[in-house]
């Protein structure tokens, strides 16, 4: 539960309180109440339990994504890090048509 997961902001709600975010192909709605700086479409954010907790500086996005990319691609079914990452992804509100499992 300590491991935030990075995703890309696709759109922001009219009231500015939430965002649609893409996590490795899975789309979720995240709350923006506690993000450190305002975010715009195209930014990457770190997600923890359904909340964006940090805007990732653009020059550091690649380095931040690499770990998660690998974990999700190669992980065995019982891999703890992969399970935690998927749990974090499932914490966002489901977009229409998503089954909510975060395993899209």
């Amino acid at each position, binding site marked *: *539960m*300590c*491991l*935030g997961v990075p995703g890309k902001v696709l759109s922001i709600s009219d009231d500015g309180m939430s965002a649609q975010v*893409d996590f*490795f*192909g899975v789309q979720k709605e995240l*709350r923006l*109440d*506690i*993000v*450190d700086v305002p975010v715009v479409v195209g930014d990457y954010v*770190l997600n*923890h*339990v*359904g*909340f964006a*907790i*940090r805007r*990732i*500086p653009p020059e*550091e996005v*690649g*380095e*931040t*994504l*690499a*770990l998660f*990319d*690998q974990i999700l691609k190669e992980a065995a079914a*019982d*891999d*703890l*890090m992969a*399970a*935690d990452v998927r*749990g*974090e992804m*499932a*914490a*966002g*509100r489901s977009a229409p048509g998503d089954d909510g499992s*975060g395993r899209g």
Partner: protein
Amino acid sequence: MGSLFDELKFRDPERARALSEALRREVEAAGRTISLMHVCGSHEQAIARFGLRAAFPRGLDVIMGPGCPVCVTDTPEVDEAVALAAQGARLCTYGDMLRLPGTVKSLADVQSDGADVEVVYSVTQAVEIARARPGEQVVFFASGFETTAVATAAVLLAGVPENFSVLSSHKYVPAAMDVVSEMKETNIEGFIAAGHAATITGWGIFEPFAARTRTPVVVAGFEPLDVLAAVLELVRLVRARRPEVMNCYPRCVSREGNGPALEKLWKVFDVVAGNWRGIARVPRGNLELRPEWDHVNARRRFRIDTTAVGGASRNLLAEHCICGSIMSGLARPSDCPIFGKECRPDSPVGACMVSSEGSCKIWHVYGGPPDLKEVA
């Protein structure tokens, strides 16, 4: 999204070997065993998963301390949640909490008895459940360090329905380091601080600790090279007797941390003393709702009768459990007589075998002691 494998400078084998070799030289030059502690389940996962202990030299011990907030949640706290569920409340909690043993029962046990217990991935899901069931009392049994507590704070500040309350078992990271540094039996010379918790608090929060205990602290990320580089820097600080804080995870952690999140956290929570399972009474260990939030605090709002679920433990195996010593850095999971035998992920006896951040579960899943392989 395309593959990022061509960008993996954080997993470059050449750099890993160079770091490992530099680490070996530093520890050899020290001429003694150096013990370092990290306080984050995700760090133990990374160390075990990527086999990093094989890259650590002889004479270097990297131990997991009380870095699993679920594991240090005390039995009376679980008893409160179990009692509330048995009294008819709908209990929502994070998945790791479900099988955490109470004195007699876990939430999973009371769920099989017919109580309403639901696993959620986010506190916002618990609030939605409360909105959908206005006739029921919905209690969110909140666990996690301050990184997770800010989410609980944010939903309370945004407004919750009248039938929603919080049973806080949130813990405070700096206390985890305080409690270990005050134990005379341990000989920890440096701490690796959790990267994402520091995203919220900022690395500056560790400066008073480093100065007071004369112990260096390094903030680390979760890539294999993040961890190796942080361990190398920490060994250098130890050898130079420089009790400083170094940020080795600047892409996610700043000195000040996340200001808006901290403001929300301290509007809702206070740091209070609390018992940590198997360890000690920790003076600044727990995050409890401030008095102005009594109306959503399950402990203030309901009469929680734990007599039916408290009392003497019926679990004789629990007497053999050494989770407390493991989390204090005094023993390793493989030192426990019931590790992997009576205590397994499918039938956990101790708290460290329950959570994905517990060191026993991590060692069990990734094949036992992850440092069996010795580097010559």
